[in-house]
């Protein structure tokens, strides 16, 4: 027996849960000063909503109602605990403090979401804990979902989260948006957490599938949230970069699950709306004088996105942008990508010379893409022996199944015999 009225109420509460629960949670953390108490308060608030809204109707501002219900529920929890465990005077004191009338509802709940992001991505936390905590607390993923996304056992993720929360509490990591002077360093940490989530989804570094769309869409959601709350040029750049890369997702893997290089992709499959959004964000980021590595990488992705066919790619512009990127954020991986762009502009020999320069310094000697790129350039130069050796080396270095199959196919075309495994 189902009651259509109660069904529709449940749907409304569920919709409000999806839209508002993380905002309410972010505010409850600030009001209660404790992640776990806030989580409990959030759940209690929704239980109260399910019980009370059918009779009273959905309040005009469900968010404010839920924050208020969560706060009063927490006061009860604290007072009960203080009574049960004698001597915990600080719990009773906290209950009193948060129940005083001057403890008013904030005007701008969005600030709380930004506080939550900056706290979860605090540089005092371990990088892997930042990622887990952000997905768990900001995105609302369960510990099991985070664990399966990173192919890590759930107890490991749970332990990371527990330790990070303990450090936040014990070292007193403040629940605040950093001051302007600290913002560049702190924003950088946030952007890297989001980028790490995206990369893990887009270039799954291990496992049997190449893309984990759940993670890329969570990263894009986080990027959008950050742009909405704090439209700094690098935040725009990162969102643009993710949108432009993700626009190619439908073309990047064949129906059989095999990796397709950019030059072999059916560009009609690229998501045009996402490209348009990405391009608009790139130009907005670049008009600011404070753009950085993410905006430059987005600009490179934009040049690719604008080419209707691979042959029409403006490699001169891409090589020029890599020069800019190398100055802004020097790294061997950027050098490798620049070498690949220069090979497209000036011919494969120029690219091989640059890659050899990187390898002879001792950089990237265990980085599969360096050898895959060198192999491809050697193949174009007709240096089949070198190409074969480099593909073989890349094969020993990759941990990713789809990539391994791709490299084996490439190696197979060289030796003239396909080796399918």
């Amino acid at each position, binding site marked *: 027996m189902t009651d259509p009225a109660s069904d529709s109420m449940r749907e409304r509460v569920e919709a409000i849960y999806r839209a508002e629960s993380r905002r309410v949670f972010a505010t409850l953390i600030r009001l209660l000063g404790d992640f776990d108490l806030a989580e409990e308060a959030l759940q209690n608030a929704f239980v109260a909503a399910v019980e009370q809204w059918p009779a009273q109707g959905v309040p005009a501002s469900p968010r404010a109602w839920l924050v208020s219900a969560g706060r009063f529920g927490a006061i009860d929890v604290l007072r009960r605990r203080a009574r049960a465990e004698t001597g915990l005077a600080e719990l009773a004191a906290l209950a009193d403090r948060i129940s005083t009338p001057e403890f008013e509802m904030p005007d701008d709940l969005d600030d709380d979401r930004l506080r939550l992001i900056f706290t979860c991505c605090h540089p*005092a936390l371990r990088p892997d804990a930042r990622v887990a905590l952000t997905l768990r607390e900001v995105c609302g993923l369960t510990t099991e979902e985070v664990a399966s996304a990173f192919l890590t056992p759930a107890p490991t993720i749970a332990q990371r989260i527990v330790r990070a929360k303990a450090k936040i509490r*014990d*070292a*007193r*990591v*403040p629940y605040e948006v950093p001051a302007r002077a*600290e913002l560049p360093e702190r924003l950088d940490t946030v952007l890297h957490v989001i980028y790490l989530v995206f990369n893990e989804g887009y270039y799954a570094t291990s496992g049997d599938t190449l893309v984990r769309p759940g993670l890329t869409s969570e990263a894009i959601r986080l990027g959008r949230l950050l742009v909405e709350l704090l439209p700094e040029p690098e935040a725009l750049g990162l969102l643009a970069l993710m949108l432009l890369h993700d626009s190619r997702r439908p073309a990047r893997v064949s129906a059989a699950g095999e990796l397709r290089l950019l030059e072999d992709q059916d560009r009609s499959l690229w998501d045009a709306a996402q490209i348009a959004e990405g391009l608009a964000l790139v130009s907005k980021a670049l008009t600011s004088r404070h753009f950085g590595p993410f905006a430059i990488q987005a600009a490179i992705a934009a040049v690719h996105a604008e080419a209707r066919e691979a042959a029409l790619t403006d490699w001169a512009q891409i090589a020029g942008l890599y020069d800019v990127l190398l100055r802004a954020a020097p790294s061997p991986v950027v050098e490798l990508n620049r070498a690949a762009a220069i090979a497209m502009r000036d011919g494969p020999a120029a690219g091989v010379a640059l890659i050899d320069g990187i390898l002879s310094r001792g950089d990237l000697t265990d980085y599969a893409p360096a050898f895959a790129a060198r192999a491809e350039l050697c193949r174009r130069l007709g240096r089949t022996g070198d190409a074969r050796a480099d593909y073989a080396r890349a094969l020993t270095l990759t941990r990713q199944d789809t990539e391994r199959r791709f490299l084996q196919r490439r190696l197979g075309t060289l030796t003239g015999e396909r080796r399918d495994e």
Partner: protein
Amino acid sequence: MKYLCLIYSDESQWKTLPPAELETMNKEYFAYTQSVQKSGHYLGGNPLQPTQTATTVRVRNGQLSTTDGPFAETKEQLGGYYLLEARDLNDAIQAASRIPGAKYGAIEVRPIADMKMPDPPR
């Protein structure tokens, strides 16, 4: 909240430092100490004698064992500390980042655990 800022650096570098640079360093430390006294962060602080003056003491099965040297031989050594009062970790990080030694070695920022002493007998 109280934070202990432990100043680590390679003490072998100090021995080779020209006197003029050593004096500059001392001046920087005096200026820093004054600044945290003024800002209300300062609770205490001291430089330590080099690790060759260190003695490590252990008691095992009631037996005292005393050894020469620091607890752990590491590339960078504990050379001094500040005890600071800070609003929260961000405030402590900001204050610790201005310790002159941060430019050469590293500062470990550790919150002081709040241990409640039992009430004295009446």
